[in-house]
Structures are given as C-alpha cells and as structure tokens.
C-alpha cells in the first residue's frame, strides 16, 4: 500500500520535508495554459470540514515541464502528475509530454468547467499517447460511479483515484456566500463515508488498483478504505492541520492492524465485501 498526498493539498517545493514523508508525491493539477486560479476568498471552514475554491492555479504545461518538474525530480520521491484540461486534446497533449511519472487524470474538479467529453473519452485519448500508468480521478457526484469506473477501465485506465471533493456552499452571518465564487470543493472528515461508498462500489465492479481518499485523518480511516477495496491511500485536508500526518497515519495503521490480528495491510483488503452471515439472536 502506498501512502500519497491528495492532489492540490501539498506543494512539494514549498514543503519538501512533508513530500518526502509520503511514498509518492501527487502534484497540483497541470493545465495546458497557466492559471492564476479563482479570486479570493478561496477557503471557508465548515462545522467539520472545509470548502476550497482554488480553481486549478498552476504555472501551465510549458513552465511545469521546464521548471517545476525538474525541481520535483530532485526531491527523490516517486512523482504522480495530476493532469487537467478543458478538452480531451488538452489532457492528451500534456500526457504525451510526460515521462517517468504516474499520471492522474483530474476528471472531476468541482471548481472549473468540465470538458465536453466523457471521462472514458478523455482516458482513451490519453491512453493513445502514453504508456505511463494512468489513474482516473473520479467525482463522487456521479449517479453511478461504478459505471464510470467500468467505462474508464475499458478505455485503458490503469487505476482509479477515489474521490475528488463534492461541490458545497457556505454562508456567512449576512447569509452571503463566504467564497468569492460561491461554491467550492467540500473536503475533510465529512467526505469519508462518501469515499468509502465510492471505493466499495468501484471495487465491486473493477479489479484496478484504487487510491482511496476523502476525509482520511487516522490509521483507522486508512484501514477502512483498504477494507472497502483501496490498494493505496491518500491524505488531503488532514495535511493542512498536521504536517506529520503521513508518519502518524502509518503508525496508527500499524497499531490498528496489530490490534485486529492482521499480519499486513493486505490481509484487510476488501474485507468489507465479505458477506456477513447473520448470527442467531
């Protein structure tokens, strides 16, 4: 099991010591053109989570490839590059320029316009131009995420990243939206049951590797994702309040496994899918 950061939740060049605490670093989403991102206010806390409306701020493909990626390679951490765009061609052109990395296709940012093509069409366009491992990051807002998972698998995806944030809205005391763009991506602890359900549903229909993420704060949370079918786990919002989250979650996971009598994390894989036999009352 790899422990990763969720895309958009860590800048490895600003905090290399945090990036090195993971088994791989997932970049912020790279788009063909540079993006300043959305206007402020971009962050709003909720009762137990948060909204973000960053809007895929990034230096654009050319500068990423020429400046950011070489610096990231010097960190010595396996790299996952999150790729975004506004058409299948956008995604494919970036994928064609990437070598020696795992690619995560961001097919589900709630803060920008979506591409016209379906997730499967985008995956197929990228598959045609790269042999790099391709993970499709899906939205939990899909009516039937299992169907989407099957479609992107058939289109050539090598794995799934589950889940991105859900679109949410927070009002201030005057009943006005706190975020400048009104809505944002909802993340943090409340997303965990949504992530578990998505991983569970996709594992039921697909044998692909799955990076499970959404509201993971503890080793127990990571274990639950594995039990639902995740092969890897990523931390997102937890990193904002705890830069030591990766080593802490690893240590807690080891304790959870020992307490449950598992020799390794793989023994807990898909346990939630084992039919439960009702006992006699």
């Amino acid at each position: 099991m790899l422990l990763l950061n969720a895309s958009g939740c860590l800048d490895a060049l600003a905090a290399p010591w945090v990036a090195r605490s993971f088994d791989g670093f997932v970049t912020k989403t790279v788009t063909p053109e540079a993006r300043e991102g959305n206007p402020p206010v971009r962050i709003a806390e909720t009762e137990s989570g948060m909204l973000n409306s960053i809007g895929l701020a990034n230096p654009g493909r050319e500068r990423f490839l020429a400046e950011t990626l070489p610096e990231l390679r010097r960190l010595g951490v396996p790299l996952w590059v999150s790729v975004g765009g506004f058409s299948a061609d956008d995604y494919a052109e970036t994928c064609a320029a990437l070598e020696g990395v795992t690619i995560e296709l961001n097919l589900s940012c709630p803060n920008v316009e979506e591409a016209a093509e379906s997730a499967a069409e985008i995956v197929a366009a990228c598959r045609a131009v790269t042999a790099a491992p391709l993970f499709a990051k899906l939205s939990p807002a899909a009516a039937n995420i299992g169907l989407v998972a099957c479609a992107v698998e058939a289109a050539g995806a090598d794995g799934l990243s589950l889940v991105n944030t859900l679109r949410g809205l927070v009002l201030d005391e005057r009943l006005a939206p706190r975020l400048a763009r009104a809505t944002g991506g909802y993340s943090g602890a409340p997303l965990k049951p949504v992530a578990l359900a998505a991983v569970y549903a996709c594992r039921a229909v697909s044998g692909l590797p799955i990076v499970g993420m959404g509201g993971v704060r503890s080793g127990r949370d990571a274990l639950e994702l594995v039990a639902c079918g995740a092969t890897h786990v990523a931390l997102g919002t937890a990193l904002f309040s705890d830069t030591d989250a990766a080593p802490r979650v690893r240590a807690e996971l080891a304790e959870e496994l020992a307490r449950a009598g598992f020799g390794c994390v793989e023994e807990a894989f898909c346990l939630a899918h084992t039919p439960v036999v009702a006992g006699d009352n």
Partner: protein
Amino acid sequence: MPRRERARVRAVEQVGAYSLVRLRRGRLETGSPGQFFMLEAPGCPLPRALSLSSAPAGELAFLIDPVGRGTRALAALEPGEEIAVFGPLGRGFRLDRPRPLLVGGGIGIAPLPFLSEALEHPPAVLGFRSARHAEAALLLPGAEVVVDPVLVTDAIPLDRDVLACGPEPMLRALRELCPGAQLAWEAPMACGYGACYGCVVELDGALKRLCVEGPVLCFS
C-alpha cells in the same frame, strides 16, 4: 525551519476587547516580527494563523480578537491545556529601515509589540474602533492612539518608513499614502505552509500567496 509541537497554555489574559494567549515556547523558535504560527483551535477542523505578539523568556504570546468560532475557542483556553502549534511561518518585516514608524489598526496591533522590541521602540500610531478596544494600546507603551472616527491615516507623518498591520481598507490607504510601506496582510488560510493556495490577496492585479510570499509585503 518551522516546527510543530504541542504547547501548554500558561495563561489567557484579557486586554481590553482582546485576549492574550500565552503559551510555553518549548523548542519552537520565535522567528522574526511579522511571521506567524498556525494554532490548533479546539473543535475546529482548521488551525488559525496568528502572528506572534511577544516572546518573553520561554513563552510565545498571541493577541486574539475573539470574533469567530476558532478565535473564541482559543480565547477560552484554560491554563494547562495543550494545543498544536506550527511555525514560525511566512516572511516578516524587514528591520533595516532608517526611520521606522509602526502603524496598527484594531487587532493589527498584534505583531507590533514584538516588532517594537526588535526595533528598539520606534514611534507608533494605533487606531481602534472603540475606547475598549484601545485598551490594547498598553501593549505598546508610548504609542499615539486614535479612536474612530479618527483614522491612523489622519495621524501619521509621511516622512517615515511605515511598518503596518491592520484591516484591509487601512492597508490599501497606506499603500497610497506611503508607497514603500511594509504591510502585513490577512486572508483565510488553511495550511500556513504553501500547500493549499487558499490565502491569496489581489494586489496590482496579481494574486499573492500570503503564507509564503507574505504576510508582510512591500512594493517599493
């Protein structure tokens, strides 16, 4: 290099309308004036960004305006409780200006006691919205104090090197009056260390990420 530690509360003191939260320093560095720390706010999912107010021996002190859920939770801390503290973070004030003048508006007085000590107590002008809020001026002895409707921009000499912290309208007015001013900005912040890209402010049409480019920005 910032550190993350659990810090024990020594005391929480009332200073006019504000609360001074005094923490044991432990192995945390104080950083330079204008830098900030992320403080765990009990019961809140995100920590709160607060600039250091003063650093007596073995201590870190933060002045807090308890206006929201997180700041109220911090002001309600009891001696002996522990919270996670991460810092120092960001870029503070440059201290090499020949004729410094400290300017604070409201809770913007927060980083000025530490800054004043580093600069050996230069002149200061403070503005508050009420006499009760103005009681916080005792943290900066000798400062000139104005209370609403008088504004700090009415009271400052223009031939000084301004180092200021306060509400955004005050900072934007100071930029016009004193083009070389060093100004400490504020924005909602999730992480404090460059991870989330949430804490941007728009200045001259460009977005500045406050936690790594600021919070103190200077345009001269």
